[in-house]
Every structure is written in structure tokens, then in C-alpha cells.
């Protein structure tokens, strides 16, 4: 389980996943935050009001998927890098996964990288679609990956193929 391995279980994930109907409508944030810890920047970062106000700072984020437009503002504010955006409508065979990334080198648009799952294992090749790395993000880049659709709920990291 998560507390022993650091890898969220299927049950963990099932409890926070947006419904298929919502996924079919476009990009949406998924907070893979499974522990009650004293932390609330995600709530304060959401301009859509999609992350419900915390009654207690130890509450876990509850996302109103109907209010979330997948903008990703919350992603670079989360100290745990635990929020991702998935867009299942990106293509017929590909989905978009947005990943918070704090390693160098930052990949370039068009680059092919190795998509990695939550256990640290490579699962597929992925293409860099966009790199967001503005001052507001304060050194937490958001990298948009196009991945084969079947892996959109598995890919949560990537490795660049080689250091330039």
C-alpha cells in the first residue's frame, strides 16, 4: 500500500478519479493527494472555485469536476507535485497528460520522452506538446505530454531520452 511503497493503490486512485462522462468533456485536474496533511495552497490557487474550501487545513482536496476547466493553476502550487491534468479528448488515440516537473533539462516541444508510471517504470513513448514555465510557476514547470490513450491514467512522470 501507499504508506509502505509510496505507490498509490487502485483503490486510492478509484476514490479520486473523475467520472468517464467528465473525462469525455475535456481537460480536468486530478489531485493524487491521499493523506490528511496540513496543507491548502491548491484551494487558494483555484480561480474556478473548483477545489472546495477546506473546513480544516488537514482536509484533502475535493475537486468539483464540473467547475474544473483543467487550467492547471493548482499544479504548480502543490508542494507535493500531486496534481495532474488529463485531457482524454486530445486525440483519437492519444490523450494529454500535464505533469509538474522540476528536473533539468526541461524538454523541448516536439521531443520524444519516455513516459513513466507511478512505480517509476517506463510504459510508453510520449511527445512533448507544450512547456509552461512562467515566473508565476516559480520553477515548477508544467509539461504537456501526448501519450497513448490507454496509458493516460498511468503516466505521471517522464524521463528525457538523453541529456543534450
Amino acid at each position, binding site marked *: 500500500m501507499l*504508506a509502505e511503497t*509510496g505507490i498509490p493503490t487502485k483503490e486510492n486512485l478509484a476514490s479520486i478519479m473523475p467520472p468517464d462522462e467528465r473525462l469525455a468533456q475535456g481537460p480536468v485536474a486530478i489531485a493524487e493527494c491521499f493523506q*490528511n496533511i*496540513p496543507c491548502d495552497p491548491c484551494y487558494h490557487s483555484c480561480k474556478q472555485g473548483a477545489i472546495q474550501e477546506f473546513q480544516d*487545513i488537514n482536509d484533502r482536496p475535493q475537486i468539483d469536476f464540473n467547475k474544473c476547466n483543467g487550467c492547471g493553476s493548482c499544479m504548480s502550487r502543490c508542494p507535493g507535485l500531486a496534481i495532474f491534468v488529463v485531457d482524454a479528448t486530445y486525440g483519437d488515440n492519444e490523450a494529454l497528460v500535464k505533469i509538474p516537473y522540476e528536473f533539468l533539462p526541461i524538454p523541448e516541444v516536439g521531443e520524444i520522452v519516455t513516459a513513466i508510471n507511478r512505480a517509476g517504470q517506463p510504459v510508453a513513448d510520449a511527445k512533448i506538446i507544450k512547456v509552461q514555465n512562467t515566473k508565476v510557476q516559480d520553477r515548477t514547470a508544467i509539461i504537456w505530454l501526448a501519450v497513448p490513450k490507454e496509458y493516460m491514467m498511468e503516466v505521471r512522470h517522464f524521463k528525457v531520452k538523453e541529456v543534450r
Partner: protein
Amino acid sequence: MRQIEIAIVGGGPAGLAAALNASKLGARVILIDRNDYLGGQLIKQTHRFFGSKQQRASERGIDIALELAREVMSNEHIEVLTKATALGYYEDGVLLVEQAGKIIAIKPERVIIATGGAEKTLLFPNNDLPGVYGAGAVQTLVNVYGVKPGQRVLMVGAGNIGVIVSYQLLQAGVEVAAIIEAAPRIGAYWVHAAKVVRAGVPIYTRHTILRAIGEREVKGAVIAQLDENWQPIPGTERELAVDVICLSVGLTPLTELLWQAGCQMTFVPELGGNVPLRNEQLETSVPGIYVAGDVGGIEEASAAMMEGALAGLNAAASLGYTCDTLIDDRQNVLQQLAGLRSGPVGEKIRKGLAQCSL
């Protein structure tokens, strides 16, 4: 003999917050730190902090350190002594400080001890080989001096520090072979753990290090699985080729000055060792001596900053300084502290603090 209203020992998050808050009420402060910089451990903390907005959550320790240090340095009420070591506190209320080979005697009306903590170590054969480091040292090498400690690291301890330093090693281009943890559960926030695991670092709970391998330096480590009684299970030994073994097995409060001052101390495992008894004002059993931050019990930087703020306000208020918002300010800090410590991960701290109140 230097006379001063408030002397603060330690220029980390607690000491800086104490200095700013005491001076805000008008008190004159001397802030003493043995390093040549202010900020304490904050200056190595490149990751974003947890907590609430008021506690600067989502900001990075390095940025908080810079900002607080600048504020302190430009404050007319605060005199900063860096590269200055507090040598002792004597019964006549004199604090002796060594700076650049000279001894300075300070007679403060109030003292705030914010000396932080020291790393614990671990007993195993060959733990004296070059290549065995404390996590704080590794973090200093990597994040302060820009030096790689080695090529491949075994991290011992899956608390927040072990996991975060592992992440920072990865960011620095150093491989982390594994994080091992003797306890059955990961002590770090799980989001941190998930972050390093997906970056390729396995975490093995119920595992310990049996010995370091090497003659003149670390060449590897032997790890093994632990049973229910924390004993190594024969046959589970595994050898890892690493050139650094990084120990992150806990901190203990740095309390020498408090002992010397005659403060009543008590052993509280939940807080990391011996800690001073203190009242809600953070004043110890010796009137006029306050504590803030890890020296009062190992916690984390946000709590240290709030305790510092509280000790600073209280020490200044006890000298007769006040402002219109003093009561609210204090109440606000107390409420934030209570919030931080309120959840399940704060349980240990709450249990510990219950044992050391005056």
C-alpha cells in the same frame, strides 16, 4: 559588557521570526548565529513548503530565508552577529559569544533560545568510512555548495528529510539506489514519497542497513529486511553498489544552553529527546528564557517560524512593549500553530507537547 533587551541565539526560521516580531513591538534585539549567513536550514530547502497561505505555504525555503534575512538585516532594532558562537549562559545572566576570536559578554534582559536540532546517527559496521554522511551534510553540499557527494546514494530513513533530500539529489543529477526505512510505514508525507518513487527510487520499509562495504571509502552497503521485532531476517541480505550512504534517522534538540541555564528539562521521545518545560508563552522554568523552534521539540520550519513569532512577541511584551493588535497577533499565531498540529500527522507532536508544559 553589552546590555541588550533581547538576545536571540540561532538565526534559523525560529530566530528570524522571533527577532522580527520582538522588534516590531519596539524591543532592541541582538541575533546571534554561528554561520556566516542567516536562515539556518531554510537556505538548503529548495522544495515548496506545506501549510497554509499565512504560513507561506507553497513558497520555497530558500526564498523565505532570503526574504526574512533581508528584513532582519535592514531592521534598525536588530543587531546581527554572524560567525558568532554562543559559548555559554552563566548564572549571573551573562551570555558569552565568540566572534572572530574575540569573546563578547552580553547581558540580555530576555533570551530566546532558537538553536534548532542536531542530526542523529546510526550504529553499523564501517559507519566511519568516508562516504557516510548525515542528510544535512548532503543537502549542504548539493544545495549550498553545488557539490555532488557521489554518484549513487543509499538513503537511510524515509521521513520527510530523507525523502526530500533524495528528491534534491535526483534534481542534482545524483542517482539514488533506494530509500530504506526500518519502520513499517513511510514517515514522510506520501506525496513526497510518491514523487521520488515515480522518479525511479524504490522505498523499502521494514529494512535496515547491516554494514557499509569498503576499505578506504564507501563502495557499497548491505541491507536486510526486518521482522516484526525489528530484527534482520536471515537470507534477506542484499548488497547495493553505492558510494554514499546518507543517514536521515531523525533529529534531536540542541539544548546545551538550556541545560547550562538550569532550565527544567524532560525526555520526550516524540519530540526527539530532552526538551525544556515551557509555558504557553514559550517561557522556560527560568524566567526570561524563552524557546522557539526545534530546540523545544523537533517539528518543521513552519511551526518553528510561528513559535519564533510567539516567543518574540511574548519576550518583548514582558518588557512592557505593546501594540494595538498584540492580543490578536498572539491569538492568531496560536490558532495557526494549533491548526498545523491538528491533523493525524500532528498527533505525535501533540502527544509530545502535552508532556512538557509548565
